[in-house]
């Protein structure tokens, strides 16, 4: 019935570009990036700081307008969406988790308020009871005790807990696509795996598609099905994560690989 050739990919970018400044100071933060993502896939976007991966994430979230190119969700051009009302329809399907949970959290709000507020993006506003119920469910889903955390402020929680609240916030509207921009880089090493496993579970249980932006190849290897490597705004390599990491084609990927202490240690350990 659904021949793969006729069905548009879940997410597709075509020559997506974003420049900042002009003239001599022109910076091509994202330069003609094209890729596709299938539903239910976890795709890692890897690159060093300044490679344009965060800008790419903001473009995909439509928080930033591209200077050129298109983003297609289910084959529909979403780059044409303008204004709060149209963008809200997009944000019902696409949500995000950011790097620093404390700066992503309005410090004057409790968890309950931040979470229930995210339902404002919906077309019909749920009742107060439903808002609370969904908030409690979302907190449970990320492994937090609602009784304990519901009316807490961010400074009363640990970094790992705040980041899980931010993930719960993104889940409130049951999005199809989650863009996670370095969600673990501000967390302790011991908490990273918890967050990574949480994201994996979301994909397995909800069939959620996840774009995982990171500078850490180890994490990309752990969580992702496919990996996209960015370098100076351009997508220099993409493919299944094993293939890319075991047999890197681009110079930059090879250098990234050699910069990972864990992998290098392992290689020598196995006598390679």
């Amino acid at each position, binding site marked *: 019935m659904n021949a793969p050739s006729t069905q548009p990919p879940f997410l597709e970018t075509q020559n997506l570009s974003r420049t900042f400044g002009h003239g001599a100071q022109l910076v091509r933060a994202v330069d003609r990036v094209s890729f596709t993502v299938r539903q239910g896939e976890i795709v890692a976007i890897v690159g060093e700081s300044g490679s344009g991966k965060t800008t790419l994430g*903001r473009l995909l*979230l439509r*928080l930033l307008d591209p200077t050129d190119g298109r983003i297609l969700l289910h084959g529909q051009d979403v780059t044409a969406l303008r204004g*709060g009302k149209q963008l*809200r329809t997009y*944000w019902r399907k696409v*949500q*995000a988790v*950011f*790097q*620093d949970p404390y*700066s*992503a*959290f*309005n*410090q*004057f709000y*409790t968890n*309950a308020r*931040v979470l229930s*507020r*995210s*339902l*404002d*993006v*919906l077309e019909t506003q749920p009742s107060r*009871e*439903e808002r*609370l*119920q969904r908030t409690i469910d979302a907190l449970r889903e990320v492994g937090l005790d*609602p*009784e304990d955390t*519901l*009316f*807490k*402020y961010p400074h009363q929680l640990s970094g790992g807990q705040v980041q899980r609240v*931010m993930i719960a*916030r993104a889940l409130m509207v049951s999005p199809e696509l989650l863009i996670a921009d370095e969600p673990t880089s501000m967390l302790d090493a011991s908490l990273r795996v918890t967050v990574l496993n949480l994201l994996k579970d979301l994909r397995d249980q909800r069939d959620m598609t996840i774009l995982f932006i990171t500078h850490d190849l180890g994490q990309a290897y752990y969580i992702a099905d496919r990996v996209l490597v960015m370098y100076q705004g351009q997508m220099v390599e993409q493919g299944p994560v094993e293939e890319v990491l075991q047999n890197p084609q681009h110079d930059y990927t090879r250098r990234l690989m050699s910069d990972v202490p864990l992998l290098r240690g392992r290689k020598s350990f196995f006598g390679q």
Partner: protein
Amino acid sequence: MTTMTQTRGRRYSSPGVLGGMGRAFLLAAYSPRFLFALTVFLLILSFGFLGPIILGRHDALMTVGGLYDKPSSTAWLGTDNFGRDVFTQLMYGIRTSLIIGFIAGSIATTLGLLIGTTAGFVGGTVENVLMAITNVVITIPSIVILILLSIAISTRSIVVMGMIIGITSWPWTARAVRAQASSLRTREHVDIARLSGAGTLSLIFSEIVPFMLSYVVMAFVLQLSSGILQEAALSMLGLGPSGNVSLGIMLQWALLWESVRTGAWWAFLPPALLLTLIAFSLLLLQSSIDEIFNPRLRRS
């Protein structure tokens, strides 16, 4: 559904007042500088507003003695050039000065906050135009505008004086607020709020303004202080509120009737000292508020 509402009050209790603001007030109680500044300011405030009622002085312009009578048991701080009680005038003068300062400060802070936040948050052409206007207003010496406006308006009531001072002193606040707003705009919680479906007004009022609140409070205190001093400057030039006593008007009378030359210190020294004390207490209040809001300045 119903069980949810029932369990809500019992199981999920809110932490109440001890949120962000509550903690700030608790900290305030432990800052001696803040407490001292607040006490001085409240004393001045009650001297102006409660003093006349408690002491039963209902008319500041009533003649009680001769030209520059020395301080005595009836006129505690002597009399002025028309034989009016200086102590009573001080109380009414503070009241007028504070009201004008308050009106001026409120207008200047509101205008500055409005223009600065709009410029900083919206950005682009709007920002350029608003900041161009602000910079033009800054370059015009405000005392000249104040003098021209004061002359143009035939009856200068207290409210009009406050408004004149207010609409000439907002630009610095606007500039500082713009800088803060445009830096706050790029924070992640603003993006999160946008992804949560918040509109522009909601973004400004819940994601930008609360984060500038401490600054706005400090700016208001400074504007209040400078409003009082500007009023004094205008009044000394003879452009004060008509039919009223203010600290500046008292100084003007003292100057015109040569109290300095005749050695009638009680005519010019008390209002000058009180002006200094008001400005000092407000400056101290402002810097101690900074200490409370900014953890890095806190002394343990």
